[in-house]
């Protein structure tokens, strides 16, 4: 079955201007995502995962500097659109987002039903009644009791708020949903519930997901692809199954080794040092300083190597 490419990102860059210089938060990201697939973005804090999500949705902070590259959604370059067209045609119509700390992403002075119907009212000329009805259906789908409709966000538990946020991202039935750490502040049981919910939705609505997380174990449940980010760049991108069994990049290896496994006696590993500053990133491989497989060539910019459909940015595979 030939897979149709939904999203194609080419050399996406997003720099932030600070008094010390430009922070290269997203520095030349390339990847593509077929329809109805989920890609999990993993990496340490501050390596540009959330910035990449914001760059995709063009939610730029005030100090955004360089913002360039190509983002093709269904073959249309959305980077070329002006702001108004982007607002009208992309946000929530084609691509929606469950922001980080989704619990705080609900307006505290709005009832959740209004909140959830808000994207529909904003985007299409639907009546308020229709929007509320859709919100009700979506609530049932994500497992929020219908009598919660009239509540305010602060009257809901964390898991329920997360569900409401997910419902809000789905009401307009977009093709791509970006979930930024949807499970990070939840207990294990609720995490599992949310992941199951996402799996069900993926099947039912044929949406694609970009799931940003630190939690590799939870993410493995839904992932079709894994994208490892380090210092604003993608160091590895590839099929999830093969990634989890045999990661290619030394950074991915270390990441996987830091995850506790059920039937394993090996001691958990960790990565020494800290990610480099993104203002003046080291030349050559950005991971070189912390890498256990470092060799002479690592001081030069590593190439992106393609190994059976998986890409890795490392000199080891050259």
């Amino acid at each position, binding site marked *: 079955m030939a897979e149709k490419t939904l999203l194609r990102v080419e050399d996406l860059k997003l720099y932030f201007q600070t008094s010390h210089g430009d922070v290269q938060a997203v520095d030349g990201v390339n990847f593509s995502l077929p329809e109805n697939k989920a890609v999990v973005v993993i990496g340490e804090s501050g390596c540009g995962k959330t910035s990449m999500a914001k760059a995709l949705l063009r939610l730029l902070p005030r100090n955004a500097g360089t913002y360039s590259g190509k983002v093709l959604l269904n073959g249309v370059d959305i980077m070329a659109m002006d702001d108004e067209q982007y607002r009208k045609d992309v946000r929530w119509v084609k691509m929606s987002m469950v*922001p980080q700390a989704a619990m705080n*992403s609900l*307006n505290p*002075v709005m009832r959740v039903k209004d909140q959830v119907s808000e994207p529909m009212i904003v*985007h299409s000329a639907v009546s308020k009644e229709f929007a509320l009805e859709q919100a009700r259906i979506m609530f049932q789908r994500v497992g929020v009791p219908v009598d919660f409709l009239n509540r305010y966000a602060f009257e809901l538990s964390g898991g329920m708020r997360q569900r409401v946020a997910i419902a809000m991202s789905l009401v307009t039935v977009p093709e791509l949903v970006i979930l930024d750490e949807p499970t990070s502040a939840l207990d294990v049981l609720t995490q599992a519930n949310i992941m199951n919910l996402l799996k069900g939705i993926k099947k039912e609505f044929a949406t694609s997901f970009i799931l940003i997380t630190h939690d590799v174990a939870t993410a493995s449940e839904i992932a079709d692809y894994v994208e490892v980010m380090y210092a604003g760049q993608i160091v590895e991108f590839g099929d999830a199954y093969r990634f989890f069994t045999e990661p290619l990049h030394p950074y991915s290896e270390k990441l996987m080794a830091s995850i506790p496994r059920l039937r394993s006696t090996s001691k958990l590993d960790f990565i020494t040092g800290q990610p480099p500053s993104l203002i003046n990133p080291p030349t050559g491989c950005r991971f070189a300083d912390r890498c256990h497989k470092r060799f002479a060539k690592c001081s030069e910019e590593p190439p992106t190597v393609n190994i059976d459909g998986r890409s890795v940015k490392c000199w080891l595979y050259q």
Partner: protein
Amino acid sequence: MKKFINTLREIWKYPSAVFGMIIVLALLVAAVVVVVKIPYSEAIDTWRGGEEVYGKNPRNVPPTWYNWFRKDKLVESLDMNEGDEGVTIEEIVTEGGTPIKTTTFEFDFQYDTFPQDLVFYFTSTFDTKQPFVSVKIFTPDEREIKVGSFAIGATHTYPLKQDEKLRKKLGGVVPNIGIFIQENDETQTPVKGIYRLVVESITFEEGSTVQSEFVLTGQVFGWAGTDHLRRDLSLPLLWGIPVAMAFGLLAAIGTSVLTMAIAAIGTWYGGIVDGIIQRITEINLVLPFLSILIMIGTFYSRSIWVILGATIALSIFTGGIKSYRSMFIQVKESTYIEAARAYGAKNGRIIFRYLIPRVIPLLLPGLVSAVPSFVFLEASLALLGIGDPVLPTWGKMINDAYANAAIYRGWYYWILEPAVLLMITGLGFASLGFALDRIFNPRLRGM
């Protein structure tokens, strides 16, 4: 609705707030009642009317309730018409066929001071021959004072105080005193008891009539007293309520709402918009507010509505912009605002549906607390002589009192009445505002 009831319930916990709310509600109800009962045009006409409206009032006297606190009672005013209680009419025809009408005014005088004046008002109808009246006074100590006899025209006013002949008759004592004391009484204590004033009117024509009215202008009047033009001060006190409420509330609402909206817009768009708003605010903050209002009042218009507009315009760009901005900056960075941006809400929608509702709870107490300052402002402007020249207001009243040296001459009621009303208004709104602040301001909760 439920929220509103909850708020009321919270207010109930603060006695000062209940007190404040009662005052505010009472003032609002009074304002409406006054405007309905005494329409604007009627109030203006009455207030600007002259002798024909106020001529029978005493001049510069305190309100009647002064007597409650005094041992030596002040004379209360009296206005007796034919047909009133205490007035008897007797009509006889002499043998010569001349009709004589005897009108007797009888009143009980139980005071320790003297009236300002005693005045007869005669109205008569005749063709060519004027009717003739003669007035006699019978005092409780059985003196009979022949006041005078004279022919009267169609209308005739006869103030006894100005009658020089009568003065001589009373041994050189001014009639309004002389009538009430015994001859050669050095202590000048009025004789208490029933006084009888007898008016005999003789007409010389068929169909000719005489109507007489007796007015005793006392030392107290009404519940508010009178001013230098004999005007009843209850009118400006009453009409001051709607004026103060309208000015205070409109100015407070106008400024608070506009300040908040402008602060929200500035904060949301940031950059040059915010910069311009902030610079305007900073410039406006150093401009002398009162001086500008005085200049507008002096050179342009003294209409209360022009002043109100200028007040609102000058009060928008003040400290409020800065404090709202600080709140909005915080709210603006919330995740839910970013979420709203992400799902494509337009700027206007974000400002009015996301930013502003968040801060409205903080607007309310500020708004309520701002009302008295605008009420005082209106009074201050009136006191400085640039109040509305037409409207009777509290400030205008204080201005009149000041211009007539009320304090120096001991007419305290003239200044204290509007001042007390101003204070009560301020107190009511302030205590309600403070309680609302405690209810709505999360930082003060539980303190």
